[in-house]
C-alpha cells in the first residue's frame, strides 16, 4: 500500500517536470507529514547530515579535475598518441577515437565530459580526413560512455555511497570491463571501416610514437596517480580526487597552458554549479531512501522476490530492464541514487556480489546515456556535430548494439568484473 503511494506520488511529481531533487524531497515531506509521527525537523537536518560524508566529496573533486582537463591540451595529445598507435589499421582515426576515449576516461569521471573533450577535437579532424559524419558521431557518443565505467567514475561513487560498498574495489572492478568494452567498440569500428573502406592513417614510426607518448605523459601520469594511489592505499579515493584536481589545475595552467589564471575562477564556479546540483540530488535521495527503509520497503520487496522470485537469472534480467527503462527518462546519477537502494538489498539476498552488481548498474547507465530521449552523450554529440537527435540515433546503433551484447556479458559473467579486485585482494 505505502509502496504504491510513495512511488505513485514520486512518479507524478517527476512527470510534471520539476527538478528530480525537489520531487524526491516533496514526496518524503508529504509522506512524513500525513502518514507518520517522525519529528519533521530531523528531516531538515538529514539534508545536512545526508552528505556529511568524506567519500561523497570525491564527486566535486573529480568534477573540478575533469573541468580543468576538458580544455583541449590533454585530450589533443592523447588523441595524437592513440593515432600513432592504432591509426594505420582499418578505422584509422575512428579507432584512435575509441582508444583516446578510453585513455581520457581513465582520468575523467564523467561520460559527457569525455565526449566533449575527445569529440570536439577528433570529429572535425575525422570529417577533414574523409570519414562520414555519422561514423565519427557514433563512435564518440558510445566510446565517451566509457567515462563512467573506466575509473575514476562519478556514478560509481554515487553507487558506493548509496549502498555502502568500497569505492576503491568498485573502481578496480571497472578496469577490465572497461578495457573489454573499449576493445569491442574498437572491433565494431574496425569491422565497419573495413566493410565500407574508410581511409587509414599512414603508419607512424616508433620514433613518432615515442614522441607522442612523451608529449601526452602528463595526462597519462594522472592515471598512475589516481589508480596507483588508491590501489597502494596511499590515498583514499577522495584524497586521490583532490590530488588529481590540483594536478590537473597545474598541467592546464602551467604545463599545457590551456588556461590562464583569469579563467580559473570561472572554472571553479562552474564546477561548483555542477557539483552542487549533483550533491542536492544526493541529499534528497538520502532522504528518500531513509523513508523507504523506515517503511521497510526494500526488505519487503526482497522477501517477495525470494518467495515468488524468478531467481538470480530472472532478477538480473528484471533489474536490467528496469534500469534501461529508467534510462529513457532520467539522468544516470539520479537513477543510481533512486534505484540502487531498492535493488541492492534484493541482490544481496540473492547472493549477488555487491561489486558485480555495481558494475552492472554502471554499464546500464552507459547504455542509457547513448540512446534517446534523454541520453546526455547523444545531446552533447549533437551539439558538437550539429546532427539532429534522430539522425544521431541511427548513427549510433551499431555501437549501441555492441554495448547491449557487452551488457549481457557483464550481467551474467561476474568474473569479468570481479577478477581484478579479487586478485588484488580488495574483495574476498
Amino acid at each position: 500500500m505505502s509502496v504504491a503511494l510513495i512511488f505513485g506520488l514520486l512518479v507524478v511529481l517527476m512527470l510534471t517536470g520539476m527538478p528530480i531533487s525537489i520531487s524526491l524531497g516533496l514526496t518524503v515531506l508529504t509522506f512524513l507529514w500525513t502518514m507518520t509521527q517522525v519529528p519533521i525537523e530531523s528531516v531538515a537536518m538529514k539534508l545536512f547530515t545526508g552528505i556529511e560524508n568524506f567519500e561523497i566529496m570525491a564527486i566535486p573533486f573529480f568534477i573540478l579535475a575533469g573541468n580543468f582537463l576538458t580544455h583541449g591540451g590533454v585530450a589533443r595529445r592523447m588523441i595524437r598518441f592513440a593515432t600513432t598507435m592504432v591509426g594505420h589499421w582499418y578505422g584509422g582515426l575512428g579507432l584512435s577515437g575509441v582508444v583516446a576515449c578510453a585513455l581520457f576516461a581513465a582520468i575523467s569521471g564523467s561520460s559527457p565530459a569525455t565526449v566533449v573533450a575527445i569529440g570536439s577535437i577528433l570529429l572535425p579532424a575525422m570529417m577533414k580526413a574523409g570519414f562520414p559524419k555519422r561514423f565519427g558521431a557514433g563512435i564518440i557518443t558510445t566510446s565517451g560512455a566509457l567515462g563512467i565505467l573506466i575509473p575514476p567514475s562519478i556514478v560509481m561513487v554515487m553507487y558506493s555511497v548509496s549502498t555502502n560498498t568500497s569505492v576503491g574495489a568498485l573502481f578496480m572492478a571497472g578496469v577490465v570491463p572497461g578495457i573489454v568494452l573499449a576493445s569491442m567498440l574498437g572491433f565494431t569500428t574496425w569491422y565497419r571501416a573495413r566493410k565500407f573502406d574508410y581511409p587509414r592513417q599512414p603508419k607512424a614510426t616508433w620514433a613518432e610514437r615515442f614522441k607522442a607518448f612523451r608529449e601526452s605523459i602528463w595526462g597519462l601520469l594522472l592515471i598512475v596517480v589516481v589508480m596507483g594511489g588508491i590501489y597502494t592505499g596511499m590515498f583514499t579515493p577522495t584524497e586521490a580526487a583532490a590530488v588529481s584536481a590540483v594536478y590537473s589545475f597545474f598541467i592546464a595552467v602551467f604545463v599545457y597552458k590551456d588556461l590562464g589564471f583569469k579563467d580559473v575562477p570561472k572554472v571553479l564556479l562552474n564546477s561548483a554549479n555542477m557539483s552542487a546540483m549533483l550533491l542536492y540530488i544526493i541529499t534528497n535521495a538520502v532522504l528518500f531512501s531513509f523513508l523507504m527503509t523506515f517503511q521497510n520497503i526494500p526488505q519487503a520487496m526482497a522477501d517477495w522476490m525470494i518467495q515468488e522470485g524468478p531467481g538470480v537469472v530472472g532478477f538480473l534480467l528484471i533489474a536490467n530492464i528496469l534500469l534501461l527503462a529508467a534510462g529513457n527518462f532520467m539522468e544516470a546519477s539520479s537513477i543510481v541514487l533512486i534505484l540502487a537502494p531498492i535493488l541492492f538489498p534484493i541482490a544481496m539476498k540473492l547472493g549477488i556480489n555487491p561489486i558485480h552488481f555495481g558494475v552492472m548498474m554502471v554499464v546500464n547507465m552507459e547504455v542509457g546515456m547513448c540512446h534517446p530521449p534523454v541520453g546526455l552523450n547523444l545531446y552533447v554529440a549533437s551539439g558538437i556535430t550539429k546532427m539532429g537527435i534522430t539522425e544521431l540515433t541511427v548513427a549510433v546503433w551499431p555501437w549501441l548494439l555492441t554495448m547491449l551484447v557487452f551488457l549481457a556479458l557483464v550481467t551474467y559473467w561476474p568474473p569479468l568484473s570481479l577478477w581484478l579486485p579479487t586478485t588484488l585482494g580488495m574483495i574476498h
Partner: protein
Amino acid sequence: MLKILDRLEEILISLLMAGATLITFVSVVHRYLAGVAIPHLQDWLLSIDLSWSQELTVIMFVWMAKFGAAYGVRTGIHVGVDVLINRLSDKNRFKFIVIGLLAGAFFTGTIGTLGARFVWENGAHYAFLTARGLATGDLPEGPITPDLEWHTWMVYSAVPLGSWLMCFRFLQVAVAFIRTGELPHHDHGHVAGLEEEAPPKPGEEDRIYRMEDDLHPRDLHDGDEEERK
C-alpha cells in the same frame, strides 16, 4: 542590491570549492612529507596537526552544495524529467513549469524554516541569549563538532540560509518566466559550425548539463520558433 547578492553567492561557492580542494591536498602532502626524515622540517611538520582537515572539507562542501544549489536554480542546471511536458502545447507547458517552480519554492522554503527551527533549538537560542547577557535557563548549549569543536548550530545554519536563498531564487525565476516566458539556461544557439567547434571555453563546462535535452523544460519561445519555421 540583487547584483551584490549574485556576486557574493558566486564568490562564496568558488572560494569554498578552491579552499576545500587546497585543504585536502595540503593535508595529503603533509601526511607524506612528515614521514620523510629531513631535520627541522620534519619536526616542524610533525608539530602541525591537520586532523581537522577532513571535517573542514566536509563542512565547506556542504555549504558549497547548499548555496551552489541556489545558484543552480539561477543558471537552470537542476535536471528533471521533462520528456512529457516538452511535448505539450505552450499553454499547458507554461502551467506545468510554473507549478514546478512554485513547488521548488515551497519545498525549499519549508526546509529552510524547519532547519531554522532546528538550529534555533540546538544552540542558536542559547548563544543569542548569552551574547546579550541574559539568563539561558535550561536551554541546551548545543553540541559541538568532534575535531574543530565548532558549534554545530553554526555549521548547520547552511541548511536554513541556503534553502531560503534557493526559495528566493525559485520565486525569482518564476516571476521572470511569467513575465517573459524565458527560463534560465545556457544559450548554445550561437555555437558555430563544426569546423569552428572548439572544446568548451573556460567556465562553460557545465553546459553539458544545461542543454535542451528533455532533462530541462523548454522555453515558451522555442515553440514559437518551430512554428515560424
